[in-house]
């Protein structure tokens, strides 16, 4: 019930609609009291043989007009009330989306996509139900109940009313219990449906692996088991659901019976007329809705309040990286990194307590024994327009380092200066504006290649497009597509090969003409020949850009003025290509590994 109070801001903002709806509902409830009375009077007149045709015509006319007025009022309150509730859904969706747009990448790594989607779909729907059907059930149920009860007691008989309602409290208890049972049953059923979706998704994504390992029968039996669980769960829901109708049937039947037994006795004593009994029966029929409404409202409110709690908690989530910086201008593009150590902030889980989380991000994480430093003692400078290469074995912290440069994590124990300004002091917008970052796994949006490229710079001219396409060596590929640049790349770019996706992502980043370019192993799926070509293009096209290239292929780093070799989060070697070769350490041995065959051949 509290949920209605918690949504007060929305109700207030849309109070006109709600007031109108409430007024109309009241009018309908009041007008509905008239027909039973009119019909009761007719019955009495028939019984007493006093009916004349003018009364009959009058009553008929009245009923006809009432029907029309009630119809109009009913149509209108629905439009006002439900219209408003859908507005709440729309507003909440947008609020969530805008909130997500502000959260840091790490948030999306630790929260499952499906869970976030569930908030935007199920929880939003539950809220909308609360603001629409919930209000209807709460207000109209209560109102109709009170009005009908008043009519019964005042115009007919309080004794009869008591007699008629004897079976109801018992029914109400049952209904409430069923409601709870149904609710928890539904949760289980929905969960099983979620599992069904999960296994479906996984199967389809991994179908090649399943086929090549001959796992069809295995996965089918897994799926069948889940499908069976799902059916059982829904059958359990059906068991509860099936009790509703009989309970209502017995309640109403018993209630009518009580009315008739007690009412019949009153008629014999001439304390009640047959017409009043008829009116009373009709009023009793009106009480079915409030009875339903009560249980319904409890369910809706319960669900709505759970949804509201989840959504509120979600909206209260602070970005890990708050946009605290104020400097909006960056004129120099050199980089200076002084890092003593860095740990990932540790989270105890997606729904970890807010305060708890804050404490951890505020620098207490060092004391956690489990979070070993990811990066340690990293110091280097990169002059403006210079090129820095970074390499090292898998998991040595290369990507983490880049993420710190982009301020995707808060940098305690580190000083990162772009153009002499600490990243924390730069506005996030400004920082992002100056850096073109190409991640290892390219993400393309399901639209045309052109649209994907224009995301980098929406006002880019056709000439700009052609230029970056050339640099990214995409020319031939695009010519090969049926619709060229206007080819739709499909969900996450599925229609493109891995190398093509990477090159589109690269072109998109280049289009931004940002003064800083960061490639995170961004050409790993491109074959070596093409990679060499692209690097050569980059060298001429982005001569003035400050460039950072991360790669496993040392050939890609050869031209960097400075190369860092990371290992287990620390700089193992540092220097130019020639210097590193001369050191005869990891770099040199890997280089030899990659090139030894070549050397041998040259000897032949």
């Amino acid at each position: 019930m509290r949920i209605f109070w918690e949504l007060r801001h929305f109700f207030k903002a849309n109070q006109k609609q709600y007031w109108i709806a409430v007024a109309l509902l009241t009018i309908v409830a009041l007008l509905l009291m008239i027909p039973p009375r009119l019909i009761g009077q007719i019955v009495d007149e028939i019984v007493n043989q006093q009916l004349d045709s003018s009364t009959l015509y009058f009553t008929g006319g009245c009923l006809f007009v009432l029907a029309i007025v009630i119809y109009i009022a009913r149509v209108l309150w629905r439009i006002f009330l439900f219209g408003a509730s859908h507005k709440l859904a729309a507003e909440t969706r947008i609020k969530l989306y805008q909130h997500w747009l502000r959260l840091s990448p790490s948030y999306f790594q630790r929260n499952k996509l499906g869970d976030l989607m569930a908030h935007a779909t199920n929880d939003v729907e539950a809220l909308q139900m609360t603001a629409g059907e919930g209000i209807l059930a709460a207000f109209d149920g209560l109102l109709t109940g009170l009005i009908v009860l008043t009519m019964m007691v005042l115009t007919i008989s309080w004794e009869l009313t008591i007699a008629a309602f004897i079976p109801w409290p018992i029914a109400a208890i049952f209904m409430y219990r069923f409601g709870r049972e149904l609710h928890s049953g539904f949760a289980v059923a929905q969960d099983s449906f979620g599992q069904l979706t999960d296994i479906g998704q996984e199967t389809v994504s991994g179908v090649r692996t399943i086929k090549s390992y001959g796992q069809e029968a295995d996965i089918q039996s897994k799926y069948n088991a889940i499908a069976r669980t799902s059916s059982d769960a829904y059958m359990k829901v059906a068991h509860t659901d099936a009790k509703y109708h009989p309970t209502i049937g017995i309640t109403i039947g018993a209630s009518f019976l009580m009315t008739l037994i007690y009412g019949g006795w009153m008629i014999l004593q001439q304390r009640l007329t047959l017409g009043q009994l008829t009116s009373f029966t009709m009023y009793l029929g009106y009480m079915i809705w409030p009875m339903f409404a009560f249980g319904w409202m409890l369910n809706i409110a319960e669900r709505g309040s759970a949804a509201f709690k989840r959504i509120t908690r979600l909206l209260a989530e602070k970005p890990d990286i708050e946009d605290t910086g104020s400097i909006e201008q960056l004129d120099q593009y050199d980089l200076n990194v002084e890092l003593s150590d860095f740990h990932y902030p540790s989270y105890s889980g997606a729904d970890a307590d807010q305060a708890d989380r804050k404490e951890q991000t505020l620098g207490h994480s060092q004391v956690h024994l489990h979070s070993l430093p990811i990066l340690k003692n990293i110091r280097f400078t990169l002059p403006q327009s210079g090129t820095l290469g970074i390499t090292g074995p898998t998991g040595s912290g290369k990507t983490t380092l880049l993420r710190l440069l982009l301020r995707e994590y808060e940098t305690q124990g580190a000083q990162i200066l772009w153009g002499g300004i600490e990243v924390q002091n730069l506005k996030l917008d400004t920082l992002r504006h100056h850096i073109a970052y190409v991640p290892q796994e390219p993400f393309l949006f399901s639209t045309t290649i052109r649209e994907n490229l224009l995301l980098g710079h929406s006002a880019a001219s056709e000439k700009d497009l052609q230029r970056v396409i050339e640099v990214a060596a995409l020319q031939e590929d695009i010519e090969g597509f049926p619709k060229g640049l206007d080819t739709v790349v499909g969900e996450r770019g599925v229609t493109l090969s891995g190398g093509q996706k990477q090159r589109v992502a690269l072109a998109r980043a280049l289009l931004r003409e940002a003064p800083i370019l960061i490639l995170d192993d961004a050409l790993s799926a491109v074959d070596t020949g093409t990679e060499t070509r692209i690097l050569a293009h980059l060298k001429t096209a982005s001569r003035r850009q400050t460039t950072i290239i991360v790669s496993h292929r040392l050939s890609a780093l050869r031209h960097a003025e400075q190369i860092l070799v990371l290992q287990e989060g620390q700089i193992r070697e540092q220097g130019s290509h020639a210097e590193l070769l001369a050191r005869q350490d990891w770099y040199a041995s890997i280089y030899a590994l990659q090139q030894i065959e070549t050397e041998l051949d040259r000897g032949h």
Partner: protein
Amino acid sequence: MYWNVFKRLLRFSLVHKQLWIWGLITLLIATLCDVAGPYLIKVFIDEHLTNGVYISEATLTLLAFYLAAMFIGAVGHYAQALLFSKVALSVVETLREQVFHAVIHRPVAYFDTTSTGAIVSRLTNDSEAIKELFLNVIATFVQNLVLVTGIFIMMGILDIHLMLVSALILPFIALAMWGYQRLSTPLFQKVRSLLSDINARLHESLSGMSVIQALNQQPRFDEQFQDTVWQHYLWRVRNVRLDGLMLRALVDFMSMLALAAIVFAFGLTSLEQSVEIGVLYAFINYLGRFVEPLIELTQRLNIMQQSLVAGQRVFELLDAPLEQYSGTARIEHGRIEARHLSFSYDDETTVLDNISFSIEPGKMLGIVGRTGSGKSTLTQLLLRFYPVAPDMLLIDDIPMDQISTSSLRKSVCMVEQEPFLFQGTLAENLIMGEQYTTNELTSALEQVGLSSLLQRLPEGLNTVLGERGSRLSNGERHLVAIARALLRQPKILILDEATATVDSASEALVQRTIQRLRGNLTLIVIAHRLSTIKDADNILVLHHGRLVEEGSHVSLLEKRGLYEHLYSIQTAHLALE
């Protein structure tokens, strides 16, 4: 067309004939009990109460009947609801299993052209829609039809004229239902498609958030999202308007008119002849009972269209030919031969053009070519992911289509460009339906240099790897996939750019593993780095789907052709030094 889908769905449920029949019988009994109540009351009022009789043998009998009807009716309703649910859920369960079966046995080409979302939707949402059809449309329809029929029969027994007056509203209600269907279907579809747009946008934005932020595109995405949400809202409001005008309010309106008509007609009759007041009482009671079912029906019909569209999609999937190979020949050695192999995915663009080569058991074949030269396609053909003409591709001199599926799956293993790991533990991902000891698993991981990973993972082999192995780095995922393949001791192992994302140190490890394996199995290696395949017994150079060069590393270099060119590009920087 939808009529056929409907019939076929019904036929699906006929497997459960027993349930259907019992459901109908209990429904009839329950409905009979339902409609008996008001009639009994009528008898009480007219034959006893108006005559001043209150307690008598006859009234007590009536009471007994009333109570019996009430309780039998309750039990009957409970039973019929369960029986109809059972039918619906059984149908859907069977359907789901069949759809899943159809999905995993579709040829791989199907998955190339159909999006994951669409297929998953067949498995979940569509079958759910069909469940709704059975549960909420067909069952409701039958239940309400029986009830309304029962009510009208009772009305007819009580007073045929008044029954006819009540029946006057039926055509109007039918008209309203029909009109509502016509008007609401397009609205409904629009709302649904906008909602799925919203969800698609959300899904995409959430998965690509870091890109949106890195590109500073938040305002633009926000704008697009808001646009869709408000559009959805507008159509939703239109929908609300139509529902408001035509559903409950309208049926309530008509029933009130019917009430007025009954009272009026009854009153008119009473002016001319004597009437039984209990009849009016019963009619008012009956009228109150058949409004609800009619409203319910109108609303439920909305689902029907949707369910039938879903049904059609599901049947299309079920009817599509399965991938079927009935061969029984087994692979013993691992000799591969291609004879004038040509292949096209779409019968238009040739991907492989007249390729011939052979490789003896235990030898190593390297495949080289630029992106898109057909390298991956060739290996996929060896896995029989796509059918080829008989005699074009043979393993152990057996045409592909005659090899038994189990033998093929056991003998030919591939580590793909982007290996797929399943949700589950590391061990589960390695075992994949076979049986291995912990020792075997550990040593397979050692072989690919993952012993340190094993120590790092909190629960070792039993560590859950997360969605698609998200706990592992790209390189580690790849190495796990190699370990998985090695465990199976295949006759033929295909490594498709398996080293593209693995760092050089791990690659060296893989190299050593390959070296160790040489001679034990037939190896096919596709690599971007030519160094990987330098030692191969034979190297194929593919260019635009044609085999342009073939031979050993040394002989290919001597040819000074494409291979030498690729090689020189790869090593260009060395020449500069």
